Structures are given as structure tokens and as C-alpha cells.
């Protein structure tokens, strides 16, 4: 390891890390389990779900210890981390209890809560039907895509994932990345015929030039072509038809050179 490596201890084992890594980065690298709901490696950590809490202390801290979110806390020399003990489990149980009160119908939350022994919430159940845990993964993925069409709005108990002025967001391209990344499946969209309905929009879909299968909204195609610098035609054929076309192209090129293909199975057998 390099000299500028940072030495830290997780659950009594010693590890080395680089400046800028978080506790969760090291734990993931080493295969040490820490539960998460709002974390995704491709996105900026947000510390929203609080499930990844771990306990930290240090030889110089005179016995002081504290609970921090592993996804946000940067590694430092001599840090001593514990990823599971009764204090940590108490916090995680409370978090899951609260999430279960907010989203009693969510399978994902029910399953996670059960792993921590929470089978029913001890708080008042939310009467509004939702499976959104306000983790903000959808907002962050939308920003990474370059759209920033949705955001969190409101505060406290009124906080929600919202669209500007309650109208279909003008920057939305209908890619549905928000729906795909949502850990609890709270964002709905519908593909019917050549129309995708999401966030109040009805997007017209581009159909595969060969089979007619809907590929992506027309608006998204323009966006992706411009962003990647690729010709729009790259986005007009579905993967199955592209593969078929490749097979046919190679096949016909070999058929033209059939006379040369003497190295058949018999020749090598």
C-alpha cells in the first residue's frame, strides 16, 4: 500500500483506505455488511435514510464515541468503527419503525424491518397511501442524467418528491430512470402502445425501425443524441433487432467469401 494510505479499524480488523473514501466505501470493498436504502454508488451520498449508521471512536477521543452515517463520514487516520452493536440496532430499528409508519404497504420496508425484529410500527400509521421513503435517489439520478426535472419540496411532514408547480416538469425527458432506481417502487409510469405516461406527461415513443417495439420517448432520443454526440440512428433499433442485423451482416459477408472457407470442422478435426 502507498505511504499516504489512511489506516482505520472496522470491527476490530485493520484496513487501509485512501483520502476521500467514506466508511461505507471501505466496508463495501471489504465485504462488511452495512444496510442502506438511499445509497447508490453512482450518485452522491445523501445520508437521508439513516440506516447506515455506525459507531465511531478514536484512541485520542478520550472515550468519546458517536453514531454517524457511514455513507457520508470520511475515513481518517486511527478511526475505530463498529458496524453492528445494540446502540446501532436501536437506531436502525427506530428508523425502520418510522419508515414502516410512513409506508405500511411497502414490501421492501416490511422485509427490512422484519430483519431487525420490527413487524408492526409503534407509531401512528400514515393514512396517505405511499411507498415513497423520501430518500431522494430519484432526484439525484435525474440530476446526474442532466435533467433535474424533479426535486424534494416542502418541509417536515409535508416534504415530498415534487414537480414544479404541480405541472408536468418541462425538463423531464421521460427516461424513467427515477422509477428504475427507486428502492421501493414508488414512482409509477405506464407504457401503452407508443405512449409513455410519467409525471403527468404523455410522451410519444420512438419505435424500433425493424420490429416496431417502443424504445424511448422522442424527446429522450433528441436529448441522448445531443449529449453523447452519437447520430440519432443509434437509438432507433432495439437490442434484439440490432443483434439480428449483426448476424445477417456477418452471414452475408461470409456467404460472399464461401469459396475461401476451407477451414471447416473436418480440416481441424
Amino acid at each position, binding site marked *: 500500500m502507498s505511504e499516504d494510505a489512511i489506516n482505520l479499524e472496522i470491527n476490530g480488523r485493520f484496513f487501509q483506505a485512501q483520502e476521500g473514501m467514506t466508511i461505507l466505501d471501505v466496508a463495501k470493498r471489504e465485504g462488511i455488511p452495512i444496510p442502506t436504502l438511499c445509497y447508490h454508488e*453512482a450518485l452522491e451520498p445523501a445520508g437521508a435514510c439513516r440506516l447506515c449508521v455506525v459507531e465511531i471512536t478514536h484512541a485520542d477521543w478520550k472515550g468519546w464515541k458517536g453514531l454517524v452515517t457511514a455513507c457520508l463520514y470520511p475515513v481518517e487516520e486511527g478511526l475505530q468503527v463498529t458496524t453492528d452493536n445494540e446502540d446501532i440496532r436501536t437506531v436502525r430499528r427506530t428508523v425502520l419503525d418510522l419508515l414502516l409508519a410512513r409506508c405500511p404497504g411497502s414490501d421492501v420496508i416490511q422485509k427490512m424491518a422484519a430483519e431487525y425484529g420490527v413487524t408492526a410500527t409503534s407509531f401512528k400509521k400514515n393514512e396517505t397511501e405511499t411507498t415513497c421513503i423520501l430518500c431522494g435517489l430519484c432526484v439525484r439520478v435525474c440530476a446526474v442524467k442532466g435533467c433535474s426535472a424533479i426535486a424534494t419540496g416542502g418541509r417536515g411532514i409535508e416534504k415530498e418528491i415534487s414537480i414544479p408547480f404541480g405541472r408536468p416538469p418541462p425538463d423531464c425527458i421521460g*427516461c424513467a430512470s427515477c422509477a428504475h432506481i427507486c428502492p421501493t417502487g414508488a414512482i409509477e409510469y405506464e407504457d401503452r402502445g407508443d405512449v409513455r405516461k410519467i409525471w403527468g406527461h404523455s410522451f410519444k415513443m420512438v419505435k424500433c425501425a425493424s420490429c416496431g417495439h417502443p424504445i424511448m420517448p422522442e424527446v429522450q432520443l433528441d436529448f441522448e443524441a445531443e449529449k453523447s454526440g452519437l447520430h440519432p440512428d*443509434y437509438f432507433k433499433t432495439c437490442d434484439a433487432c*440490432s443483434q439480428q442485423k449483426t448476424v445477417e451482416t456477418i452471414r452475408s459477408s461470409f456467404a460472399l467469401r464461401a469459396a475461401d472457407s476451407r477451414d471447416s470442422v473436418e480440416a481441424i478435426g
Partner: protein
Amino acid sequence: MERILTITPSRCTACRTCELACSFRHAGRGGLGISRIRAFMFGEGKNQIITCFQCDDAACVKVCPVEALTRNESTGAIEVNADRCIGCGLCSIACPFGHMTHSALSGTAVKCDLCGGEPACAAFCPTQTLEYK
């Protein structure tokens, strides 16, 4: 120098051993549908094997919004970092050859990664249609 996976279609008997080797290697079970390499049967001497070309200027890499596709400098293969992949499926649409697939099981992109430098398909190919040299 880098080694490459070569395909000599005229030797292929479309026995599909490569597909099985690939699915066992990557998914731990045999399943022709989950393989990253595909054999197409058109009759002796005309069969086709299709897998990723590991393009130099790859469309999949260009369109990925989260840099989940990177080239492994030692093998030359473009690899999917499944933890980074957000499952948007753009790479599978952009690949002009249809070599990128979207796994419904993991919700991420899957593609040939040359098995990190020891491609199972080539190791198991009984007719040396697939060679890694």
C-alpha cells in the same frame, strides 16, 4: 500485447457449449437465455457466434450517464460495474450490434467481460471456433 477473442464461424457446429460455459461462469447456472454469447444455427459451415466486439470507440461507453462502463486495461474488455449501473438500458439500445443486454434479474446491464482474461467460452469450445490468443 493484448490477447483477443477470435471467432472462426466456419468451424462452429452451433453446439452452444459456449453459451452454457458463459451462463455457468457468470450466473452459476446453465441457461442459454442468460448467456452473454450467442450461437445461431444456420447449417454446417454457416453457423454464427455473436458476442461483444469490445469496440475501441464504443457507443455503450459514450451513452452511459454514470460511467458504469469502463475498459479493463489488462484485457481490453469493456466491463459493467453493476454497483454503479442505474439500469437505464441506454447502452443496450445504443450498441449498434445488439451485444449489450439488460438483465431483468439484476436490473443492470450485462455484457461479455472476457471473464477477466480467461474466457470460459473459448476454454470449453470443442472445435476451436472460439480462441483466445
